[in-house]
């Protein structure tokens, strides 16, 4: 409707002064700087565009991989370092590959189909498999949430804060954070939490390890054939590759509306996430390996104990940072796990889900989310709660759940009608199946041992 309507075509000169057009609301000294900045902005546009393309996609991969290093994970890593020093560091490289290969498949499915993993399983395999998959997920994640709140309790006790104060506060914080925040804000906070993992790097440096030795052991595998060593290796892998993360990762890419065109960036995100996750694990193992292992303090029960034991060996700050890292990781995972679980359940069953809905529109979603946090925190506060049994159950559930999810994933990713040209190539399939079989085998071993000798399994002592 851009029309020039001049009902009166008159051409008389106008002498009124030009109207004051700009209402200067900004102090005058700002102007030159604004010009300079916008100039700079214009010159760097193409570079910024490329960075933006990447940053627009970053998030799901980095967040998911880092949540892997949750309270349970950190316990296992510090135990591995305390018990065997640097001897298990070599496993990080194959673990990075396994993590990347499995997560990349989910990222690819997410960006290509635009659907969550539970959506796809429901549509392609029907109601009943989805239901049992989801039920297993609920049980396993519930156990994990307990472990996170146990991590909160352990880390704050080092700062002489009673768990009866810290755990309810943490639960409230986590609950409010997700319910009051938008997806964008929450993601930014989560990314910040990823950065805070650097506490472990500093902590490891303070422990003054022999870097050359650590580097050598990372590259050259050392295999011991004693049962404890193999069990620890299995536990490391079991805690790193957890089924819920596939659901969360895929949903993250779907929620961010990353399209197939942005797949290269999504893949970079996953790669960056897997590598950074393993780098943190490296520093945790090095930290406890350089102190607890060297001084003969081989047996610790959890990450909190590791932090405490660090104080006399590597100084107060190393211990504080270690505990801080644990608190950060626990809070981080305690907010993501219930959220992811509620999402998976509601998506698969067809209930309304998502934090953009109001409570009345998505009652089941909110009840699940709130319920998991409340139960998880409550179990930690009940003095005689069977925490150890819950953690064992969760470990076993994880082991049963993982093979099923991995096999579903491999079946889905090879469906040309879903994935088009993005199906696995032959090489990818070989790598993926080998990874899956290896991970499944190791996890089943862990389940077997957990059932037979519950007390001997790393990471189940809270």
């Amino acid at each position, binding site marked *: *409707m*851009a*029309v*020039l*309507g*001049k*009902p*009166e075509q*008159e*051409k*008389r*000169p*106008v002498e*009124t002064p*030009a*109207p*004051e*057009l*700009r*209402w200067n*609301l*900004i102090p005058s000294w700002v102007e030159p700087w*604004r010009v300079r900045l*916008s100039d700079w902005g214009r010159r760097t546009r193409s570079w910024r565009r490329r960075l933006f393309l990447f940053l*627009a996609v970053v998030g799901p991969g980095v967040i998911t991989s880092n949540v892997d290093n949750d309270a349970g994970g950190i316990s296992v890593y510090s135990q591995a370092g305390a018990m065997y020093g640097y001897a298990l560091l070599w496993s990080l490289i194959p673990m990075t590959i396994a993590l990347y290969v499995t997560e990349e498949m989910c990222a690819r499915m997410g960006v290509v*189909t*635009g*659907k969550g993993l539970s959506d796809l399983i*429901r*549509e392609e395999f*029907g*109601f*009943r498999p*989805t*239901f049992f998959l989801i039920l297993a997920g609920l049980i396993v994640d519930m156990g994990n949430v307990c472990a996170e709140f146990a991590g909160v309790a352990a880390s704050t006790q080092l700062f002489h804060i009673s768990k009866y104060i810290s755990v309810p506060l943490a639960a409230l914080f986590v609950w409010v954070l997700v319910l009051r925040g938008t997806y964008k804000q929450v993601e930014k906070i989560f990314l910040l939490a990823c950065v805070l993992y650097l506490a472990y790097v500093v902590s490891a440096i303070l422990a003054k390890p022999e870097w050359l030795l650590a580097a050598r052991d990372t590259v050259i595998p050392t295999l011991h054939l004693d049962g404890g060593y193999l069990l620890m290796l299995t536990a490391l892998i079991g805690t790193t590759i957890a089924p819920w993360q596939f659901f969360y990762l895929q949903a993250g890419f779907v929620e961010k*509306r990353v*399209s*197939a*065109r942005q797949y290269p960036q999504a893949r970079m995100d996953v790669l960056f996430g897997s590598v950074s996750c393993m780098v943190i694990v490296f520093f945790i193992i090095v930290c406890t390996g350089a102190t607890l292992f060297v001084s003969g303090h081989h047996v610790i029960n959890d990450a909190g104990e590791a932090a405490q034991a660090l104080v006399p060996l590597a100084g107060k700050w190393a211990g504080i940072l270690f505990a801080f890292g644990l608190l950060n990781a626990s809070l981080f995972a305690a907010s993501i796990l219930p959220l992811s679980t509620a999402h998976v359940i509601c998506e698969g*069953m*067809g209930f309304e889900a998502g934090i953009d809905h109001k409570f009345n529109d998505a009652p089941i979603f909110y009840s699940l989310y709130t319920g998991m946090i409340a139960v998880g925190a409550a179990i930690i506060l009940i003095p005689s709660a069977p925490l150890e049994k819950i953690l064992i159950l969760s470990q076993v559930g994880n082991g049963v759940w993982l093979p099923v999810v991995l096999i579903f994933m491999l079946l889905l990713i090879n469906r040309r009608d879903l994935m088009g040209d993005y199906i696995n190539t032959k090489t990818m399939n070989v790598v993926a199946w080998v990874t899956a079989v290896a991970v499944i085998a190791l996890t089943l071993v862990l389940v077997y041992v957990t059932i037979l000798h519950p007390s001997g399994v790393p990471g189940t002592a809270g």
Partner: protein
Amino acid sequence: MLHATDLLGGEAYDRDGHFVGQITELFVEPADQTNRVARVLLGRGKYLPLVARYDSVAFVAPGVIRLNIEEKDLEHYQPNEGWLGMRKDLLDQQIIDTSGRKVVRVNDIDMAEQRINGTVELRVTQVDVGLTGAARRLLHGVASPGVVRGLTTKLPTRVIPWEFVNLIEPDPLRRVKLRITHQKLERMHPADLADIMEELSPLERQSIIASLDEETAAEALAELDKRLTTQIVETLAPQKAADILEEMDPDQAADVIAGMRPESSREVLSEMPGDEAREVRELLKFEENSAGGMMNTDFVYVGESATRDEVVSWIREKDVDLERLDTVFLINGDAKFSGAVAVGRLLYAAPYDRMEGMKMEPLIAVPPDASDREVFEIFDKYNLHSLAVVDGNGRPIGAIEVDDVVTRLRNR
């Protein structure tokens, strides 16, 4: 009432009571009748499956179908794209509930029996998207039918009548064969339609946009998240994309094009008619978060010495979007911006009042390079609905409307 869950997996017998096969699929043929179960697929293990037509079904009960012909009279199954399979296309899939304006997942399908001269026809009445369907799916074949029935009657039901079900089929050829139209979607409010599209996968979104008329498509896209809009438009054929973008406001169209890859944006622009493409190109020159990037080149401006009657009758003649017209901008004899008049003012003015007498005080406009923050502050301070954007010579080149401001503030 029968449920798809009760029938699928059930057994079929012929006229003489011989077992024929297992009920593996129920087909509706929408091109013929929209709700009649037209074919029953009978699987027979390693043998070729057979198909029974609706008029050869004599009796139906949960888990059992009896035919009125012999096994040898049944046809062999040939896949048909025009048949809607309940198991394949409906159960567990997402559909659009056009009355509730939501995307939902099908748990079960309810059917009614209709007796017509000795045969039984099944008519789809509604789809079950609630707990009853879920419980039936979970317990079918595990618990006894009586227990299942008893349990499901206690659960709250959530069903959608079949006539409000809008299927989502990404394949355009199959959509035609299945007679899926999106007329019901076109009658929805664009904001609701946009909400529905956000719930779908990219392929499904594209298919819906491609089959809507351009005007509805443009309105729905304008309500969507900008990144999504760009993604969708980019995947459309350039001609179709240009048609849709023409229907949008130039500033929105420019925003969409600005996010596209250079080669596809060039293609789309070359498909647009000259005038509109030029307007969009002009807008693309401005930084996105400046006044120039926010403004719309569609605005109404008249000479300041025009009378109220002249302006009103002139507006009546023109194709002006009345829902959104709230300010008329004024120019003086040099075609320079000289003021703004709220449309409400015109209601009270006498027929021969001059426009310049109704101007809003003070005179406010911004240059195209003003930052968005400045614009927000001005809108807030002076409680504006529209703000003029003027070039270096004081000529109006566009207007920023309050809805653009709200959208941007929300996205910050």
